[in-house]
C-alpha cells in the first residue's frame, strides 16, 4: 500500500491563512500565546504587522476580535478549542454572535486527539457550545484539502464562523477537484441499508468502516458533513427516507454535536433510528492520540458496531 500523506488540519489552517492574507489586506490574525501550536506562526512570519498576539487572555482576545471586526477588519481569532469555545464562550456569544460580527474563530486542538496533554485540554464540547449561538456557522473539516477550503469559504462569508481543527496528522482524503460549500454535506458513497454521516477526523475511519461493511454485504451510504451549522437538512432527510436508519460519527461528545444535529433534523422530517458514535459523555485522558482514539472506540471498529446497532433497530 502506498504511503498515505498525512497532514494535521491545524497546519492547513496556518497555510490557508497565509494564502488568504495575500488576498485580503484587511485580514488580521489574533492568537493567545499559542501561535506555534495553532500554526498561525506561519502567518506571523508572512505578515508580522497583521498578526497580533493577545497573550494568555482569550476572553479579551474575543473582544478585541469583535472591535476589529466592527471597525472593518476580517479577523481570525485563534486558540485551542477548549479556550476559544469554552473559556471565552460568553464573549463569543455576546460580543461576536449577538452583533453578528465578521469574526472567524480558528479553534485547534479539538477532541481527544490532542493526546498527551490530557482531559483539561481535550475539548469535546465545543460544537455543542457553539451550536447554541444564533447565527454561528460551524465548520469541522476532515482533511487538509477541506480545511483550506473551509478557511477560504469562511473569508467569503460575512458573519461569525467557528472552524474546528485537529492537532493530529490525518490522511489527506480529498483531491484538488474537491468542492466545498458551507451548509452542504457531501455523499462519498451511495448505499441503501444505512447512512453513515461523519465529520472531521472521523471521516477517515468512516470510509474504512463503509468499505468493510460492504464486504459483509451491507450497503452503506456515506456522507461527509463538514458543516455542522447550518446543517444540511436536505441530504439528511433524504438519507432517512431512503435508507431507514442513520449512524453519526464525530470526535466530540455524543451530546450536542453532529449526532444531536442530525437527530434533531430527522425527528422533524422522517423519524428513523439515529445511533450516535463519538465520545460517550466522558472526559479524555493522557496518552498518544492514536492509542486514545482506539481506547475510546473512535475507529472503524467502533463505527461498525454502531452501524449494526442501527440496523437492528431498523428491523
Amino acid at each position, binding site marked *: 500500500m502506498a504511503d498515505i500523506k498525512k497532514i494535521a488540519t491545524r497546519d492547513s489552517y496556518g497555510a490557508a491563512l497565509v494564502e488568504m492574507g495575500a488576498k485580503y489586506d484587511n485580514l488580521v490574525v489574533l492568537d493567545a500565546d499559542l501561535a506555534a501550536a495553532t500554526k498561525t506562526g506561519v502567518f506571523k512570519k508572512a505578515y508580522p504587522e*497583521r498578526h497580533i498576539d493577545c497573550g494568555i487572555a482569550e*476572553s*479579551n482576545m474575543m473582544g*478585541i476580535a*469583535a*472591535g*476589529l471586526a466592527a*471597525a472593518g477588519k476580517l479577523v481570525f481569532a485563534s486558540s485551542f478549542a477548549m479556550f476559544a469555545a469554552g473559556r471565552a464562550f460568553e464573549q463569543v456569544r*455576546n460580543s461576536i454572535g449577538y452583533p453578528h460580527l465578521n469574526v472567524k474563530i480558528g479553534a485547534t486542538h479539538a477532541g481527544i486527539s490532542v493526546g498527551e496533554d490530557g482531559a483539561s485540554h481535550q475539548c469535546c464540547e465545543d460544537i455543542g457550545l457553539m451550536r447554541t449561538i444564533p447565527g454561528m456557522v460551524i465548520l469541522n473539516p476532515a482533511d487538509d484539502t477541506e480545511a483550506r477550503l473551509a478557511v477560504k469559504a469562511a473569508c467569503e462569508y460575512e458573519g461569525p464562523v467557528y472552524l474546528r481543527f485537529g492537532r493530529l496528522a490525518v490522511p489527506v482524503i480529498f483531491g484538488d477537484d474537491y468542492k466545498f460549500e458551507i451548509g452542504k454535506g457531501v455523499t462519498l458513497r451511495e448505499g441503501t441499508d444505512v447512512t453513515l454521516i461523519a465529520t472531521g477526523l472521523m471521516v477517515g475511519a468512516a470510509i474504512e468502516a463503509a468499505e468493510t461493511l460492504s464486504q459483509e454485504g451491507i450497503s452503506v451510504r456515506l456522507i461527509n458533513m463538514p458543516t455542522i451549522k447550518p446543517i444540511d437538512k436536505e441530504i439528511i432527510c433524504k438519507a432517512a427516507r431512503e435508507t431507514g436508519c442513520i449512524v453519526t460519527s464525530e470526535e466530540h461528545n455524543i451530546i450536542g454535536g453532529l449526532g444531536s444535529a442530525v437527530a434533531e433534523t430527522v425527528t422533524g422530517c422522517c423519524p428513523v433510528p439515529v445511533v450516535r458514535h463519538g465520545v460517550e459523555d466522558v472526559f479524555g485522558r493522557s496518552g498518544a492520540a492514536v492509542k486514545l482514539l482506539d481506547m475510546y472506540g473512535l475507529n472503524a471498529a467502533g463505527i461498525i458496531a454502531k452501524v449494526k446497532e442501527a440496523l437492528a433497530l431498523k428491523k
Partner: protein
Amino acid sequence: MDAATKKQLELNAAKIRRGIIEGVYNAKSGHPGGSLSSADLMAYLYFNRLNIDPAQPKKADRDRFVLSKGHAAPVLYSTLANRGFFPVEDLATLRKPDSYLQGHPDMKKIPGVDMSTGSLGQGISAAVGMALSAKLSGDSYKVYALLGDGEIEEGQVWEAAMFAAAKKLDNFIAIVDNNGLQIDGPIDEVNSPYPIVEKFEAFGFKTLTADAHDFDSLDAAFNEADKADGRPVAIVMKSVKGKGVSYMENNVSWHGAAPNAEQYAIAVKEIEDVIAALEA
C-alpha cells in the same frame, strides 16, 4: 470653556436627564442611577468632543464610543436622540417588544451605537479592538469607553487594560464613572476595586481624574487626554449616582428601579425647573 458653551452643555445634560427618566418610567424598568451619573459626561462628549455626524452614523473616520457599562443604555439613547440620531419621542419606547431601543445597547438596531454591550467587562475589549484597528490602518479616530466602577471588578477589564498598554494604544480613552455604588451596595464594601487610579497607572495608563459634574473639569481632563504619549488614557471621574433627581442621588436602590407616577412627576419637575432656568 466659555460661559455660553458651558450653559449650552448644562442644558443638553438636563435634556438628556429628562429623556432618561422618560424612558425608564415608560419601560417600568431600567437603570436610572448610573445613567444620571454619566449624563454630564455624555453631553460633553456628544455635544462638544466627539467627531460624529448624526446624518452619517457609520462614517468611517468617526470617533467611536462604547458604553461598556451597557446597563446605562438610557443615557446613551437619550444622548443620541437629543443629538439628532433618532427622534426624542422614541425614548418612551425603551425596552418595549416592538422598539429598537433594547434594554442594553444593540449596534445592529440603533443608529449611533458603535458596539453591542451589556455583559460587563466586554465593551472595553471591543473598544480596544477598535483602537487597534485604527492604529493598523493609520486612521486618526479615537475610541472612548465608559466603564462603571463596579464593572471594573470584572477580570476582563484588566486583560483589556494590559493589552491596550502593551500595544501602545494612545488613541484609546477609558472613562470610569466612579459613583461609588453597585447593585449590592457601596463598591468598597462589595468587592473594592480601589485604588482605581493607581491600578490603571500600574497597568501602564496615563491617568487623569475629573469631577463628572463640572464641565471645566471634564474639559481639562479630555484636553490632557488628547496629548498622546504612547500610553492609553484612563479618566477616573468622581460622580454622584442618580445625579439631578434629588431622591435618587447617592441612593443605591435607584441602580435598577423605575419611578412610580408620583416619583416620575417629581423627577420631571426637578429637571424641567433646571431646563427653564437655563433657557430663561
